[in-house]
């Protein structure tokens, strides 16, 4: 097992006793919570406020998205195994699990491209209504995060062929893993709010007040 902080490592000696890269990653993930929090709040505020369709109930496909959610959860499991293989210096395992993570992440993105394209054909774009604007902004930024993660993992995958991933460089994989799992938990929230809870929203409720 490799440790993030090796006592004998002079370069790693920090006042917190923590590796700076890892600390920075967590700071970034904490701040990214704010980013997605703002977008989620925007979606919830505008929920049900669109004056014209399509409305969520017309086009949101919950079963399809449940499948892509499964795929993303699976990819998190593969990511964990990739890190375990790195710590165990299992070179073949590193390549297999990294590739599995990349493929599953790409499948998730493929589902999202299919979904966005379907929505566009059904008449929902970024500019159609409040639902379109807030939906595409939120899920689009999440998709961008996943895409960035895939590129990051591809980089690691290429490096793994040079045999440069192992217990000594496990932090490289661990940081990518932290990012990947974070993207996964953001999707857990988005899936619950936008699909399971708000996915069946119909048109606007008639205005009860003057």
């Amino acid at each position, binding site marked *: 097992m490799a440790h993030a902080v090796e006592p004998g490592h002079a370069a790693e000696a920090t006042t917190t006793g923590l590796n700076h890269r890892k600390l920075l990653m967590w700071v970034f993930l904490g701040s990214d919570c704010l980013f997605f929090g703002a977008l*989620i709040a925007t979606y919830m505020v505008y929920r049900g406020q669109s004056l014209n369709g399509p409305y969520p109930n017309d086009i949101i496909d919950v079963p399809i998205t*449940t499948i892509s959610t499964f795929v993303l*959860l699976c990819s998190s499991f593969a990511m964990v195994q990739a890190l375990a293989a790195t710590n165990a210096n299992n070179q073949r395992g590193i390549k297999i699990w990294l590739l599995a993570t990349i493929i599953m992440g790409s499948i998730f993105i493929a589902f999202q491209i299919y979904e966005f394209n379907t929505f566009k054909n059904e008449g929902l774009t970024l500019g159609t209504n409040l639902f379109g604007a807030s939906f595409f902004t939120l899920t689009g930024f999440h998709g961008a995060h996943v895409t960035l993660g895939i590129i990051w993992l591809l980089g690691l995958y290429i490096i793994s062929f040079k045999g440069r991933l192992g217990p000594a460089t496990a932090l490289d994989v661990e940081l990518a893993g932290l990012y990947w799992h974070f993207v996964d938990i953001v999707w857990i929230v988005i899936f619950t709010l936008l699909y399971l809870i708000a996915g069946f929203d119909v048109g606007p409720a008639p205005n009860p007040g003057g």
Partner: protein
Amino acid sequence: MAGSHQDQESHHPTFRQYVLIAVILFAITIVEFLLIYPEAQIVNHLGASKIPLLVALSAVKFAIVIMFYMHLKFDNRLLGGIFLSGLGLGFAVVVAVLVLFFALQGNPRSYAEARAVPYEEHHEEEPEVVVPASTPDTSSPSVETTTEPSGTAPATSGSGGDTDALIAQGQEIFVGVGGCAACHTIDGVAAGLVGPDQTHIGTEAATRKPGLSAREYITESILDPEAFVPTGVERALPGVMTPALTANLSDDEINALVEFLLAQK
């Protein structure tokens, strides 16, 4: 933080435990899906109580992933503290924004509508409906946009007398400053859901109220909507349309609006 492991010894889960965690995450997702899927028939029994249930289930998934997959349970507490601060702050932002919007007036739409500046669609090609006399130099190639928010005084002296121009102006008022389009439907013009459909008002108005011509009836209904409510007219929300809604329109604008509605045969 739950785990109080100060030592740097990592207690990473084994492969079997990771599989178990993955299975738990899958199971929760399946339960969530069954909760909301109409064919599963569970949704009817639970009703609104399924929302807190769904939130709780995804919170459990969230916690499992950050504790085990992201090792927060086993890692230094400072890292967890940093992340949870960000998470808590983000959550606070969501709550604050929702409270800000939903606690104001109970309904953000009524709050916004009461303060909204009506949106006017910008049509480059549309013929100008402004009285020709005011702009003698209309042949100039520069396309001046006179469809700016014309809230206060669109140059209408009524001297034009051109019915088509009045109808066009009336339509602009219908979808624009008048705000009519927010509630009323006219095929091809507006699709409001609250008030009565006005697609054929030009024909219907003549027989609505005994003793009033179509023009008189429409004018009265705009100025004092509740003065006479004919039977058989579908209104989603009776009492919403009040004289205050049309009080901002000038006589000329009302005139144009009436002319436009009369043309809806």
